[in-house]
């Protein structure tokens, strides 16, 4: 009896082992089966809410995880022409299934605004998502702050930015500086000092590691912009004295203009264009590409 059972156990183990071995050999020979492209079968949040039978919040979590995976996967993908097509529909589903999912609005707005290839570069969709958040919870000043921020940083529309900062400042619990920020933004538009203040505020208030890291990166980029300005001045002074821009950092070091080859705050060497004398961060730097600063942005003349 015990012998039979032992034989059965051995056969069972052998069969399972054989199944694993066959699967391994098949995967090695033919490659793993995987979906060719990501598909979102249901796009109606209302329909999903009904179909969830009172489990809409859990379904929202599932779609939220999918949105994160979609954004993260596409962001790190090396595929040329990669697309973030599902990002907004996924975030829209999440926030319809759970209209109080604060982080989906706030993270979603950051993801959507990120310029390509780091994100889809769609601040218009960020605004649509945040406005949906405002409709769901009008008493949340954070959404107004985020809306103001998107208008300020990505769209350089200081009038609209000030409008949202002002609207947010009128909500109970909003910080004192929002009202003065609204006035200053309206008065002087964007400058680096104000950008730094905004990112610092976001960094300090960040309740999540990802948000903190993103704000830290932006602050470091602003530091790099400060340093680039100084380097630019040195390169210009060199060109004024020698009649041509410096051909390399080594030349500036040799001639005593610099003590060493300058590195950006992320540790990568700055790039000097020998023809124009323009300084920038290296394409391999973690800080690349640097943002277009609100202050540096000029309205383009309208085409006739």
């Amino acid at each position: 009896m015990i012998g039979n059972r032992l034989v059965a156990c051995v056969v069972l183990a052998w069969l399972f082992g054989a199944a694993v071995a066959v699967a391994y050999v098949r995967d090695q020979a033919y490659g793993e089966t995987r979906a060719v492209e990501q598909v979102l079968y249901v796009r109606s949040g209302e329909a999903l809410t009904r179909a969830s039978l009172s489990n809409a919040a859990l379904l929202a979590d599932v779609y939220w995880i999918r949105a994160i995976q979609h954004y993260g996967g596409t962001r790190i993908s090396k595929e040329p022409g990669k697309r973030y097509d599902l990002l907004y529909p996924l975030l829209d589903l999440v926030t319809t299934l759970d209209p109080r999912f604060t982080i989906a609005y706030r993270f979603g707005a950051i993801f959507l605004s990120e310029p390509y290839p780091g994100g889809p570069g769609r601040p218009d969709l960020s605004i649509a998502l945040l406005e949906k958040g405002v409709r769901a919870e009008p008493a949340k000043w954070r959404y107004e702050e985020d809306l103001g921020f998107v208008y300020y940083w990505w769209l350089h529309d200081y009038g609209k930015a000030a409008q949202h900062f002002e609207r947010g400042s009128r909500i109970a619990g909003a910080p004192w500086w929002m009202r003065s920020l609204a006035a200053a933004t309206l008065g002087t538009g964007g400058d680096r000092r104000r950008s730094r203040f905004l990112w610092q505020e976001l960094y300090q208030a960040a309740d999540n590691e990802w948000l903190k890291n993103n704000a830290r990166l932006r602050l470091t980029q602003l530091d790099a912009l400060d340093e680039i300005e100084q380097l630019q001045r040195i390169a210009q002074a060199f060109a004024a004295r020698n009649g041509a821009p410096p051909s390399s950092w080594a030349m500036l070091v040799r001639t005593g203009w610099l003590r060493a080859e300058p590195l950006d705050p992320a540790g990568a060497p700055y790039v000097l264009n020998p023809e124009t004398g323009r300084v920038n961060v290296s394409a391999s730097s973690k800080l690349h590409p640097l943002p277009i600063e609100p202050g540096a942005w000029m309205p383009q003349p309208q085409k006739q």
Partner: protein
Amino acid sequence: MKVLGAIALNVFRESVRDKVLYNLVLFAVLLIGASYLIGQLTAGQDMKIIKDLGLSAIGVFGLFIAVFIGIGLVWKEVERRSIYALLTKPITRVEFIVGKYLGLLLTLLVNLAVMAAALYAVLGLMTWFGPASLTSALDAPVFDPGLLLAIALIFVQLALVTAIALFFSTFSTPMLSAAFTFALYVAGHFSADLKHFESVVDSPVAVYLTRTLYYLLPNLAPFDIKALVVHGQPLAPGYLAATVLYGVVYTAAVLLAATLVFARRDFK
């Protein structure tokens, strides 16, 4: 009362013998596994997701217990022919039905209590051993007693579903009873659509019929306060009391219907 207690206890023992409590192990594994995996899959909101998952799992596990045990409560006795021996004893048919019902309710109560404790335990483990960022930016405290309110309403909803399963069990086969109970459960979540049917049709007769159906069918959607609790939203005590009262009254009506049907059954 003594008879009711004896029948109820017997149903509970039977469910333990049938390894129903194994679902608790599955629940614990699900939550512990999820609490580890979620940290890898998402960016923040781990606590919210665990609360959502825990509450939904409590509802789904409870639903399966209520339906799959509920539909067999009477049918099993008839199939095994033990009903003949039972009814010769000093037990009325009403006592038989109510006793069976209370037994399953006890099973559900024990299950829900253990699952609630497991949910709090997993939340505690995440708080004490997880990174500090897990507990920041929460809409509601980690050990929010409001979770118990959500679980209490799930229990009342399951008590109603159990009564429906038991009702079908008094005259139908388990397969059909399960189908009917699940159908009513699904319909119970769409009641609001029936109430507002006039927005899709013009016919006053159709509107009248759907409005009648809205009041006749069990309205299960109001028992769902999971999202509100997880987001720390205030709940009106009047709303909670009215929902519980609705559940109790509807359950009593279904149980009465079950006893009426069962009383008329001929076991000769």
